[in-house]
């Protein structure tokens, strides 16, 4: 594959993850922060950036671990097995440990980002409060790791590291777009006359539903994007 095709493929993954298969509005991950997000767009945007950073870091680590250690037929266990004199025809499959590994990777990534933000952006750290460690339970990050694992199962079509990072980045961007939009809408919502039963999560979900409908309009776009980008780079 030429390098141009690779770049087009990566851009397609990013756009697909950010808009067409938006993590929040299509795959329903990251709902908890999405529903509870503050009414301030700048806070929401900051949260989105933090999540994007954590997803990318977690994706990098989980791709590396899965590619070299966990997937069926991975090189590292095969090397160790061979070194202790095991039968070379047996293919080692450590994927049963995947979920435990991913959750630890995520917890460590969040811890790392927390330390980094506390040291270099103390004001930002204070304004985040308890939300930073809560990113660990954000489904979106584990979901990104699981999607990457899914693409490392078929030995004839393995995803490379750039593709995994593209998915993570696109997912994070999509999450940021979704919660920034929701925060902006909630700002407006304070001025509206919402019926009592709907106040709070009720109306937020209805708005999310309408947003999801709007994002459905992006379906089928990635084929066209691919064609446009290919012809652009030809």
């Amino acid at each position, binding site marked *: 594959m030429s390098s141009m095709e690779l770049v087009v493929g990566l851009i397609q993954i990013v756009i697909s993850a950010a808009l067409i298969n938006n993590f929040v509005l299509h795959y329903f991950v990251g709902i908890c922060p999405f529903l509870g997000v503050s009414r301030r767009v700048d806070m929401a945007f900051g949260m989105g950036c933090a999540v994007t950073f954590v997803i990318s870091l977690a994706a990098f680590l989980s791709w590396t671990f899965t590619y070299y250690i966990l997937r069926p037929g991975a090189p590292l266990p095969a090397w160790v097995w061979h070194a202790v004199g095991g039968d070379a025809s047996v293919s080692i*499959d450590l994927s049963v440990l995947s979920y*435990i590994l991913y959750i630890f990777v995520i917890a460590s990534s969040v811890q790392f980002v927390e330390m980094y933000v506390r040291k270099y952006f103390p004001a930002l750290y204070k304004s985040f409060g308890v939300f930073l460690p809560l990113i660990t339970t954000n489904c979106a990050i584990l979901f990104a790791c699981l999607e990457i694992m899914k693409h490392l199962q078929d030995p*004839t079509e393995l995803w490379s590291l750039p593709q995994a990072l593209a998915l993570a980045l696109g997912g994070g961007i999509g999450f940021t777009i979704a919660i920034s939009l929701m925060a902006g809408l909630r700002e407006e919502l304070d001025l509206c006359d919402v019926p009592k039963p709907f106040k709070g999560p009720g109306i937020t979900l209805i708005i999310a539903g309408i947003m999801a409908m709007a994002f459905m309009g992006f379906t089928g776009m990635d*084929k066209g994007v691919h064609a446009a980008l290919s012809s652009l780079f030809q």
Partner: protein
Amino acid sequence: MNQTPTRGNYLTQAWLVILLALLYGGALAAVQMGLGERIQKNKQNETYDQIPQLVPGADKAKTVEHEIQGQNHKHAIVYEARNQQGTRLGWVLPGSGQGFADRIELLIGLDPPLATILGLYVLDQKETPGLGNYITSAEKFRDQFSGKQTDPPLAVVKMDPDPKHEIQAITGATISSTSVSQIVNHTIENLRQPILDLPATAQH
């Protein structure tokens, strides 16, 4: 009791975690050993169970897998369908590609010279429910593929299809229908020569 834990304290507290890790690791290994084969069989059967439908008369237990390299330089596994006596009855090719919403995965049944399509099965798709979804649920759509010639490649029309070369699209799901035909065409074109190059097998 509120003592600030020292470094040593953390280590002594970690013995529980280590113990649990070993315990859970053992449990997972047991589960993997017990269920691993079954899961593998399930994955394999997804394809194998379809082979008798895709190539009529085939015995799924006699299927032979071949790993070949397609014209696109990617490796692919194709399935040679044989009857109970071991005679080659046809081929089953897995194909995949972009549909309208997401990837579509197919199994295509063909005769030994790869000239006629014998059957089609949709393994996986995420098309629009009620529209593109019909590529799976509407048997009429899938049955169209049986008996079609592979050369020249299939074309999709909205009505009055030519019985040997054309497919009628599902109303309201033109893109999904076209995607399926395109995947069929590309897969056959990609794998035709490498399959025909495989050595002919002797009867068992």
